[in-house]
């Protein structure tokens, strides 16, 4: 599916979407409350059929915590990038997509572990790599602990 069709499809669902940063793939910045709807449509629409979520990650940028989803279709091989910007750093929340793609269950746990972003309705949101008693979210830019060595 071409970028223009994708843009019309996504605009119809989330009117305040904005074009994204990536020059490589079509990217859309979607508000946090619409992400589940957009993801569901992209998965189930027979012309897009994005059944393969191949990357779910986050980044701590100046405009807030970004959650970036990379989707592709196993049949059409087109790629779409979705970005959610969360400005609230105290309690960032976004809806989970683990009911659409099972891979998201563990990718979201990793994001929670390292960034502290909570996912609503996630079946089992707890830390993945670090100890359960770990305090803090290491990959945030303002993370400090006693043994980080900074130059």
């Amino acid at each position, binding site marked *: 599916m071409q970028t223009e069709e994708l843009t019309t499809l996504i605009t119809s669902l989330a009117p305040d979407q904005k074009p994204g*940063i*990536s*020059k*490589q*793939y079509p990217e859309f910045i979607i508000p946090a409350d619409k992400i589940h709807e957009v993801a569901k449509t992209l998965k189930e629409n027979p012309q897009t059929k994005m*059944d*393969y*979520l*191949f*990357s779910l*990650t986050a*980044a*701590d*940028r100046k405009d807030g915590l970004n959650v*970036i989803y*990379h989707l592709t279709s*196993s049949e059409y*091989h087109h790629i779409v*990038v979705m970005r959610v910007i969360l400005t609230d750093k105290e309690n960032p929340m976004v809806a989970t997509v*683990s*009911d659409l*793609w*099972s*891979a998201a*269950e*563990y*990718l979201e746990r*990793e994001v929670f572990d*390292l960034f502290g972003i909570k996912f609503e309705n996630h*079946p*089992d949101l707890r830390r*993945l*790599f*670090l100890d359960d008693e770990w305090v803090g979210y*290491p*990959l945030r830019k303002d993370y400090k602990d006693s043994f980080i060595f*900074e*130059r």
Partner: protein
Amino acid sequence: MEETLLDFDLRDKEEYIINMGPQHPSTHGVLRFEVCLQGEQIKYLRPHCGYIHRGIEKMSEALTYPQLVHLTDRMDYLSAHINNEAVALCVENAMGVEVSDRVKYIRTIFAELTRIASHQLWWCAFGMDLGALTTFFYGLRDREHILDIFEETTGSRLTQSFITPGGLMADVHPNFQKRIKEFITYFRKKLPEYDQLLTGNIIFRERTHGIGVMSKEVAIDYGVTGPSGRGSGFSCDIRKIAPYSAYPFVKFNEITLPEGDTYARYVVRIKEMWESLNILEQLIDNIPQGPTMLELKAVKAPKGEYYQRVETARGELGVYIVSDGGPSPARIHYRTPNFSNLFVINKLAKGHKIADLVAISGSLDLVIPDIDR
């Protein structure tokens, strides 16, 4: 989606929990499986990872691009060259430069050699897990030839860091072509031995047919790529979907099998070894001359975000770089194949026995440092 902590207390009185790992001869790395058993049958299985989490992504934010390539070797150490290639390609695409054809050919040759070496180690460990202890030595004996080739050119057997943004660290050894040609002839004679020893054995077939069946929908849903996904009919070879380096210049088949059981995943890898030998043959005689390193003033990715997908021996590796224009990335994320391949194991192992768990985790070919980074 499956059992969670809540179901823990409701389990039947006849069930008991056993831990496999983190130190266990067959988990191939530090991974803990919490297995809930009833007799010999697995009721559910929960993998616990994080024992080898080293914070590679955070560390890389303080290193320059040529420096962080060295960390990628240590993720999936059996596909070290391919990991290096992924970062190198991502940075080169970001900067908008293109390497010479010579570099592309050599990168692909190293990638295919790495693929064969990785599959050899997988085969010998798989046989050993199932009890055929002799396979360990046969696989390692042949792998030594590839490691000798690596050592001659790069100086190191396992973690080479040879491929770097801009090209290669150095030019290849003069004996490179000769040794690879010798290896191709040698291995073509030895690979049928693998079939004789293990593939045709009736006990082996009984242990692997119908075990751990993964349908295509489950594979796509969980994002299982590589030979494990292709064994279920999920056609996910990045070398075909989005070719990079010298892959547009070679002809090879993508091996997929529809059954999705352990045996299918096994056969896919054996056939991939044959295909890699074909690719090597097509490339080895035609390496063009040219520079092996671009003259770059500084390796800095411009402001923006970049994603590169490559096909390692275990699946699709994605490198996602967020850059502010400096010499270090603001955020680098590795979408590793083993991470996705691991978590499907609960679905596959349910209802089977402990002995099957060993076969299934062996057939998924997990390398644990890749999961934890």
